[in-house]
């Protein structure tokens, strides 16, 4: 679609972003404080807004009430259908969960996470920020979840960025873990 915003700026920003967060990969940012995680998410959202790229950025919130109570789980996932038909088809074939039939209010925290994640994939977001402590996962569960997420990022060609306080997870996934938060110079200078 035609845009008044110069595409050169968008391309430059995306190139810088993808130099740090490569496409189709999983990243973990260490942010132990809830407030700081929210600040970073807002800051990244602002950055994408400034470059008119907010359509590409998805957010998975840690809040409990992120689903519309009057819609089924499936309808909540398909709230925004601007994603490509190919991705939708992939999702419909590959993602089978028993919680699809549940009421939005009955979901557990991990089910809420998957609903939000699929919602973003379905909406065509290719960079997804995830605010998650990931403390309530058992190691075996966590491993299974990571295998699933790795498959998802590869098949859907999306970048998942976890903003987490789970130090163990960061140590085990040290190749994709970042302890210093990129693109936050402005935020840090404001704070300072």
């Amino acid at each position, binding site marked *: 679609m035609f845009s008044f915003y110069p595409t050169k700026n968008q391309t430059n920003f995306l190139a810088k972003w993808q130099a740090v967060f490569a496409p189709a990969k999983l990243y973990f940012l260490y942010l132990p404080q809830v407030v700081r995680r929210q*600040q970073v998410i*807002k*800051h990244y*959202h*602002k950055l994408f*807004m400034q470059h008119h790229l907010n*359509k590409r950025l*998805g*957010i998975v*919130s840690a809040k409990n*009430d*992120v*689903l*519309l*109570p*009057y*819609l089924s789980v499936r*309808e909540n996932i*398909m*709230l*925004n*259908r*601007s994603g490509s038909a190919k991705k939708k088809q992939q999702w419909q074939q590959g993602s089978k969960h028993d919680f699809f039939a549940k009421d939005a209010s009955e979901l557990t925290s991990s089910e809420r996470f998957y609903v*939000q994640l699929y*919602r*973003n994939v379905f*909406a065509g*977001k290719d960079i997804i920020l995830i605010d998650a402590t990931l403390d309530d996962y058992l190691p075996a569960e966590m491993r299974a979840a990571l295998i699933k997420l790795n498959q998802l990022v590869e098949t859907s060609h999306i970048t998942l960025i976890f903003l987490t306080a789970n130090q163990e997870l960061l140590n085990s996934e040290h190749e994709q873990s970042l302890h210093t938060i990129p693109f936050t110079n402005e*935020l840090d200078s*404001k704070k300072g």
Partner: protein
Amino acid sequence: MRVIQRVFASLRYHWRYSLLFGVLATIFLVGGLSTLIVQALQNQALGLFEQRIAIIDQRSNNATRWSILRQLLHIRQAIVSDTGNIYNYLFWGFALLILLLSIISLIQRKHEFSIYQLAGKNTADISFQFALENLFLFVITSFVVVIVLLCVQTLYLNGMVQLNQYWFTQSLPANLKTLLQSNSGQAWREFNQLFQHQFTTFNGHLLLFDQGIRSSSSLADYDRFLWVLLWQGSALVFLVSYLSASIYNWGIGRKALRT
């Protein structure tokens, strides 16, 4: 079609709001239709009155000398103009109430809109859905009102005829009220001079006070008013809801970005 499903799911969930909106829309529709029907009845009477004056005035050209006729002409014109004003007040009053109701609803549903924004929906999409909810409510209410009025149309239209008659009688000055209540007397003898050497199908009483309603009509005779109310009301509801939701959602988006 998913947006339609969401609209109905939301309307069911926010049933109290839907009910209140329905009541307001019913008041506007019934009030507006009644005003327009009374205006049409009075317009018809005014047309007939002017037509009859033209008949008796053809040769003598002195009917305007009679202050009674001038008074009656002004009374009928005033009723037509007043009904027009009442319809305008109803329309803008309804607009104001819809705006207030929308603002209250938007504030109550702030979190819901944040969820839509979190799901990547833009302000235009969210506002469109909210406006669609209100538009559907208005259209559904319109159909219900029309069906109910069709069931009681004889009673309703007789009521409108009586209302028109009552309004007309109440607007008459004392001298015309006396004329209306008596069929003979000095005043009538003077007034009937107007008919000297004239052959007409009406007498003085009919000329002055006839409302021109000969046969019982049906609501279908006033279908143009129903369409006017439907399109004007729908356009108003959609615009007010869409604009208020757009401004509110834009505000939520800006606030959410503030660190």
